[in-house]
């Protein structure tokens, strides 16, 4: 139970067995049947006023654009827009570049997720095993990497990796080597920056989760003769499961949508677009090639992929029957 309430993020989803619903009902009783519905709706009104026009409507427009012919002439109002059905989608899906970009987006995201989780989890376990000073040091270092904006993280690492005056080349004795030239080397360097930025979240969340496991539980297990491995596998992992689900899904979503690091570090998608990921690809199609409807179609496809991830997420939250 404590593991599910460790952080605000841990407190996810909704569940039919949620007991909290019982208590507020008491509050409602006083306000009478007429005031029953309006209060929460009043409280939600400001959020709705912001989100419907600035989030919902653009989302609808994204879908609409994707079934129109909408390029620069239409954008400047000279030519009327034209409904073209799914032809933008057939264009995108028929384009070999889309599939290769999709493939490398998935591979890149998968790599980043696995690496972030591995580094974050190792650091979290490490934090529980070390003295006070090393722990504080690692916490503050991680906090710094977490706080660093994606933009400055990218610029600093670009400088570290710079061909002529970069420290990495100096240390490795590889002066003149361009790390961003080769496709996979460039992806790997961006992945390093992404992991550097995002492992602190995993580390701190999991550390808080481990800390929240009551000592009495671990002690009881130890008295029963459980070894470290057994305790880890049979007690800690199950108790951390809800948190693990959250950090995994959050990482998938973040890493699938990486934009700034790719855009900045590879100069908008790398040499001849070799380092494009879907996000940057859609952006380039829309704002550089000025084919807004094609960009929108890619955006819709991306949203659908992420929605599928979300659906899996919500289902697994529900199925685990956690109090969420």
């Amino acid at each position, binding site marked *: 139970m404590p593991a599910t309430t460790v952080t605000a993020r841990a407190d996810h989803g909704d569940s039919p067995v949620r007991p909290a619903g019982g208590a507020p009902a008491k509050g409602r009783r006083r306000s009478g049947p007429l005031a029953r519905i309006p209060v929460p709706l009043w409280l939600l009104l400001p959020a709705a006023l*912001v989100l419907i026009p600035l989030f919902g409507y653009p989302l609808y427009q994204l879908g609409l654009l994707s079934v129109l012919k909408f390029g620069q002439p239409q954008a400047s109002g000279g030519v009327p827009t034209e409904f073209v059905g799914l032809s933008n989608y057939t264009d995108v899906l028929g384009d070999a570049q889309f599939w290769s970009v999709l493939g490398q987006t998935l591979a890149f995201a998968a790599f980043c997720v696995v690496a972030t989780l591995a580094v974050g989890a190792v650091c979290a376990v490490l934090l529980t095993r070390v003295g006070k000073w*090393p722990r504080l040091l690692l916490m503050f270092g991680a906090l710094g990497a977490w706080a660093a904006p994606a933009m400055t993280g990218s610029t600093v690492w670009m400088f570290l990796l710079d061909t002529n005056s970069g420290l990495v080349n100096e240390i490795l004795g590889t002066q003149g080597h361009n790390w961003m030239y080769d496709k996979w080397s460039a992806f790997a360097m961006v992945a390093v920056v992404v992991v550097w930025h995002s492992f602190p979240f995993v580390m701190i969340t999991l550390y808080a989760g481990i800390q929240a496991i009551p000592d009495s539980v671990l002690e009881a297990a130890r008295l029963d003769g459980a070894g470290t491995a057994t305790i880890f596998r049979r007690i800690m992992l199950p108790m951390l499961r809800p948190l693990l689900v959250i950090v995994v899904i959050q990482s998938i979503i973040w890493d699938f949508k990486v934009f700034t690091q790719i855009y900045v570090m590879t100069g908008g998608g790398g040499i001849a677009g070799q380092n494009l990921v879907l996000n940057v690809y859609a952006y380039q199609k829309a704002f550089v090639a000025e084919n807004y409807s094609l960009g929108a179609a*890619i955006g819709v496809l991306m949203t659908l992929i*992420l929605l599928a991830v979300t659906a899996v997420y919500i289902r697994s939250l529900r199925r685990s029957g956690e109090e969420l």
Partner: protein
Amino acid sequence: MKRDNRVLRQGANVLAIVLALLTVFPLYWMVLSALKPKGEITSAHPRPWTFAPTLDNFRNALGVSGFGRYFLNSMAVAVVVVVVSAAIAFLAAVALSRFKFRFRTTILIMFLVAQMVPVEALTIPLFFLVRDIGTVAPGFGLSSLGALMLVNLAFSLPFAVWMLRGFVAAVPESLEEAARIDGASRFTILWRILFPLVAPGLAATSVFSFITAWNDFVFAKTLILDTDHQTLPAALMVFFKPDENDWGGIMAASTLMTVPVLIFFVLVQRHMVSGLGGAVKD
């Protein structure tokens, strides 16, 4: 057995320190390079120290490249987003964690789904939306800070609501119950009881709203077409030149951009931890 443990523990300590140093090193390098004189930066043999620190790079960034202006623009956007988003998210979080009503689950799931939407793709319709708004209200049109505030507000809200919900839920309801019995109005309960108790959560949430707004690169790049209203992340690109990057300037500008976030983190870090602690110990 005892001895083994001690060796293991020392090894863990060393590993933790090494990892900490590796993690923090890029930030150290950024600040160091910002302070290095020009000759040392372009040197083919960079050294991890400098004996002649100078503020030239900062002077250049703030003076010549107009970073002071971009800094203030970024600050204005971030502060407005943090304050407004905290207020709106607080109300919404109370609604979603303290009341049971129809569509509650649906709304919750929508807040969750909203976080998944690739916002970069939404720049396409938003560009046209903001362009059209601009013809009616220029203060929120293209190249206005108002547009950036609105857009960043919208995109920081779903996560803020989601996160705050946990903090509101962690406040024992008995407190509100007691206040209610004492005759406190709904507003009083909200403002005098719940708000102070959720304040640590609000602080933690603010960090994320601040980061969303402060770090935003794609909206600033797309919606701001003139240099006067540019914010830091997009303005940083100015330093990148096709032939030779001004690394001293880039590092100084990056430092200027990182410092406020770091300060914010350190300031609210205690609240974040106590907020988390509160949720843990509950």
